């Protein structure tokens, strides 16, 4: 479960500070996909990085499974799986070696790591390329390994930052199926994206982030009804227009 209350976050500029989040509040329950929609620079990644304990809030609170992220960073991280669209695995290590490495970083035992690797390999159909260097793999294969890395320690909370960014249709489908499967397993998912169709297809709740605040939040049908719009895209442009 994730609960964000009145979150503020700003970054220093050469002169003054840039306020990115201005009182953001949201909550996501287990078995739920919360989709955070927003244009570039709207604060989506900042929100995820704050949940992941990479950034410290200026104000407000962030709770993961009722643990304050500023107080219990280590415990919070043990329950998080973080996947970003920017991640580009490179080098001579094989997928298996990457998974082994991240398993160790998450303090898993040798046999647990092996068991989990086999499970993920079978689940994501990686058996054919798991022992090949990642440099020799296609983008889709690399993305499967990235997904497996985020799942090696079986986290209950999944944070996804534009996970289909730059992927072709086949690789995107792998990610979408993975997100759906996480939901059925009862995991709490926060998905940041600017792709409306993805949000419509996957989200239980949608939050439209405009200028650091949620301009609309709730289920797709609720927010469309409240704002008298027929499509998410129209609603987004309407709210974005107001925000400007």
């Amino acid at each position, binding site marked *: 479960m994730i609960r964000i209350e009145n979150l503020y976050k700003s970054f220093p500029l050469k002169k003054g500070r840039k306020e990115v989040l201005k009182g953001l509040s949201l909550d996501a329950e287990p078995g739920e996909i919360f989709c955070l929609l927003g244009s570039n620079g709207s604060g989506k990644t900042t929100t995820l990085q704050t949940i992941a304990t*990479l950034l410290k809030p200026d104000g407000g609170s962030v709770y993961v499974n009722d643990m304050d992220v500023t107080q219990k960073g280590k415990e919070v991280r043990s329950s998080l799986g*973080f996947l970003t669209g920017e991640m580009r695995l*490179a080098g001579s290590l094989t997928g298996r070696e990457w998974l082994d490495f991240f398993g160790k*970083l*998450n*303090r898993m035992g040798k046999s647990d790591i092996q068991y989990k690797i086999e499970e993920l390999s079978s689940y994501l159909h990686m058996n054919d390329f798991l022992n090949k260097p990642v440099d020799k793999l296609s983008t889709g294969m690399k993305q499967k390994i990235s997904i497996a890395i985020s799942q090696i320690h079986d986290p209950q909370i999944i944070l996804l930052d534009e996970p289909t960014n730059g992927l072709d249709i086949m690789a995107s489908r792998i990610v979408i199926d993975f997100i759906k499967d996480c939901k059925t397993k009862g995991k709490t998912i926060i998905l940041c994206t600017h792709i409306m169709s993805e949000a419509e297809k996957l989200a239980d709740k949608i939050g439209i982030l405009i200028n650091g605040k949620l301009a609309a939040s709730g289920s797709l049908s609720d927010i469309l009804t409240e704002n008298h719009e027929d499509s998410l895209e129209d609603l987004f442009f309407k709210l974005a227009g107001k925000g400007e």
Partner: protein
Amino acid sequence: MFADALIIMRKEFKNLFKSKRTMIMTFGLPLILFPVLFTGIGLVSSKSALEKENAVYYVQLENLQDQRFLDLLNEEINFISSDQGVSEYSIIIRKNNESVKVIYNSSSQKMGYAARKIEDALVKYNDLLADQKLIRAGLNRDELEIIDISLIDQAPEEVQTGEILAIFIPYILILFLLIGAMSLVLDVTAGEKERGTFSILLVNQISRSSIALGKTFYVIICSILNSFSSVLGMGLGFLITMRNYGGESIADLSVFTPLKILQLLLILISISSVVSATMIYLGSLARNLKEGGSYVMPVYMVGLFAVVITMNMEAATGVFYYAIPLVNGVFVMKSLLLGIFPPMNYLFCLLSNLIFTSVFVYLTSRLYNSERVLKTV
């Protein structure tokens, strides 16, 4: 913390060892490159020397037709008398009363060689004329040498041979240590940010100080290995050159006793620690590889400057010098190679380098705990 740092280090090593290309470029290339380079230089120089020796030179002789001189000149070079003046192929020997001028164009290496050989012939000719004058005066040259001068060096043989090593070994070791560290640091810091794996690395159970330490350990060991392979490659190159083209051995390698190697290794580890920790910190500050290069390059330049200015200096006596990273290492290595073990300076050098390393590892772990490290744009 150290066990966690080892996980990071092992992963980086695994990545390095599995990349044949990187392994060859980092450790194999110096071992192959230097012997090939030295052999090439040896071949080219011996070929060039032979060409100069066998060449026929055009010489314009002005007021110097003495057969005795011509015989002496003939012993030095193959020449044809000509009236071509000075060019890239010809030279003038102009005698005017007691003065003899050799006029040549040094833009041609061959003419430079010919001028030196003509000078040798003229010195012999001068000695010949002087001997004849002395004989006419009833003297001989030996009688004019009133004092017999000879230099006797009482330094132990290992110190005498160590002098050359004391100039070159610290220079080569530290130079390649800097080069090795620079190329690896960027990959594990700014490179990791650029590949988007850095933030993922930070979202796990181990402390960020362990991540900083693990990366530093990796760079320390790799830069030392790179430095060693470069010294071995150069040593091999020297040996091949000596064997193929004659000449005395540049130094007696018996100077490298196991104890001395251990002492040198400790110093090298401490220097590498400072260099690696500093570069890891600066590389981590950078947002991308390009910026990383511009942050790390000044360390390389300052390091190079420190090594070059101390190359021909004697080991300093003031304890202050042993607090300056790199300079302290050069001085201690020089002393060791000259058969001197200065315990206080040695310890002070190790201590100073340890303090600098700790400071930079601490700064890096603080940086990894701050938000600044996430900046990629």
